[in-house]
């Protein structure tokens, strides 16, 4: 995907998504999910298009986009690694897991490596609490993280 999309292209692709989902009851979240899937984030240029189609203010759309943790204002790295930091994973050493990943990748939470290969994020529960500590790499679930698995993850995102 090119780094910079022309705003006209964003507008037209957004309009297509909005058109497809406008008929749903409460369409805004499905539309935003669709836009994030399309662009990898929710571009500013998409907001007026949505606002106009749904007959709500641009501020309202902005308010919704910024309320939810999932919607990104900028594209993520090629891989997204979410590491669970909730209690069940804490009890199995998720603090150490996070520290090791930060060290291996050279970034903190909510950051992307300079080469754009991976974005590291905390997540509060993946429902893998009986297989703690757990993580999700691009939607793929990984449980009982240990040093070996962490090295594998890092090798995969670097390749």
């Amino acid at each position, binding site marked *: 995907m090119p780094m910079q999309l022309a705003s006209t292209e964003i507008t037209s692709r957004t309009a297509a998504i909005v058109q497809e989902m406008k008929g749903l009851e409460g369409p805004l979240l499905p539309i935003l999910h669709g836009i994030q899937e399309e662009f990898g984030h929710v571009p500013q240029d998409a907001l007026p298009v949505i606002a106009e189609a749904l007959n709500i203010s641009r501020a309202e759309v902005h308010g919704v986009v910024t309320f939810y943790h999932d919607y990104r204002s900028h594209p993520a790295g090629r891989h997204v690694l979410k590491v669970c930091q909730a*209690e069940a994973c804490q*009890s199995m050493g998720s603090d150490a897991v996070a520290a090791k990943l930060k060290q291996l990748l050279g970034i903190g939470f909510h950051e992307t490596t300079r080469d754009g290969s991976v974005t590291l994020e905390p997540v509060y529960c993946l429902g893998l*609490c009986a297989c703690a500590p757990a993580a*999700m790499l691009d939607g793929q679930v990984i449980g009982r993280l240990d040093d070996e698995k962490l090295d594998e993850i890092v090798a995969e995102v670097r390749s």
Partner: protein
Amino acid sequence: MIPRIYIPGDSGALALGAEKVAKAIAKELAERGVEAKIVRNGSRGAYFLEPMVEVATANGRVAYGPVKPADVKGLFDCGFLTGGHHKRWLGAPDKIPFLARQTRLTFARCGINDPLSLDAYKSLGGLKGLQNAVAMAPADIVRQVTESGLRGRGGAGFPTGIKWKTVLDTTADRKYIVCNADEGDSATFADRMIMEGDPFVLIEGMAIAGIATGATKGFVYIRSEYPHAVAVMKKAVEIARMSGVLGVNVLGSPNAFDMEIRVGAGAYVCGEETSLLNSLEGKRGVVRAKPPLPAIQGLFGKPTVINNVISLASVPIIMDRGAAFYRDFGMGRSRGTIPIQIAGNVKNAGLFEAGFGMTLGEIVDDIGGGTATGRPVKAVQVGGPLGAYFPRALFDTPFDYEAFAARDGLIGHAGITVFDDTADMLKQARFAMEFCAIESCGKCTPCRIGSTRGVETIDRIARGIEPEKNIALVTDLCQTMKFGSLCALGGFTPYPVMSALNHFREDFKPAPVAEAAE
């Protein structure tokens, strides 16, 4: 008969390598020229044995687990397709002690078959509850659910039948059934397991709720952290629609009911019912003040039943076997069964469905087998991030809504996180406040500001700055949050904080200087 091999496709099993095992088995079958059918079932919930592979033999199912890809060749060599002995051999799955000791009502079918096979669902008693319901008057369905004693399994424990009655008695041109599948509490995975392992039971429960209350449209709001559950539920809804379970004539009756799967966007607070409704409407997931109750003015201002996944998934068996059958399990005012999720630092981690009334000690020590690390249990948090930390001294507490409330705790969604003696309870108390600050919707001050001030004050205690004064301040702050917050996020964050303070006061003593610097 072609042998059948069952390999779970449940995300917990996948997280432990089930996909690699499935590939290894498929490869081995091809190399040996053996014909067999691989079925991807859900999980039975014994995660300490996952990936658990089962084989259907002439003498019934035989289980093996936990199976690693490296075990696969050996399994074939030992003749596992006919139940041959191997170091991973577990015998008949329903005889495995962890599973044999359970009372499976809601999870009766979970993990046995392909979750998307409606025929398999029907072969194990599925749709019987809905068949009974379509022949009944709405008020009679509501009465049966009320008499079963079923209470909301999401955490609040409100009687399901009474909620339904309010919706039934409210006149409107349109009503909704909303299933809260925003299972955000750490240590809970029951909703995920049922959606991935037996999705039709939830669809059946929602259709019954629709018929009982006059609602024709249902939504399942699933958190975005559960992509596998979303995928299974979407397919299951399509299958149900094609087979006439959903649609304008539910099971050929004059009742119409259809449903949609919606995905959340990573906000914990949307597990709170009014915030979830706002989110479904496409708004910020901000909590609404009650009244009006959602049962009277819910989704889009219409009367709405909003129930947790497990509450709705427990309805089919009540409609199939009767209110008395369900009510006979349990204790006190907690009737029926509860899927207890044993998680964290515990040897036998997994889902254990049982009648209410087991003690916390039985669950943690006996069923759970103590910690995974082998160290002593220090604390268990019951009910997710808003639940209290219980010390060993309170392990005689029976699993019952009222008994937990009497000890300043809550059952919540019945998740239990076990911590060993390396846990630092001040750190856990701080995390509770921090989590509340991250996830607060911002509508009410005690939650929005209180949580941030809570983190700061606990940090001062950790640094040894006027500890007594600051402990008194945290206690006072907790009182304000408990009684001044609009919803359970701000209102219940004091449970983990105060329980950590009250039961583990030694962890709040000033730390030695070297540690305080970190």
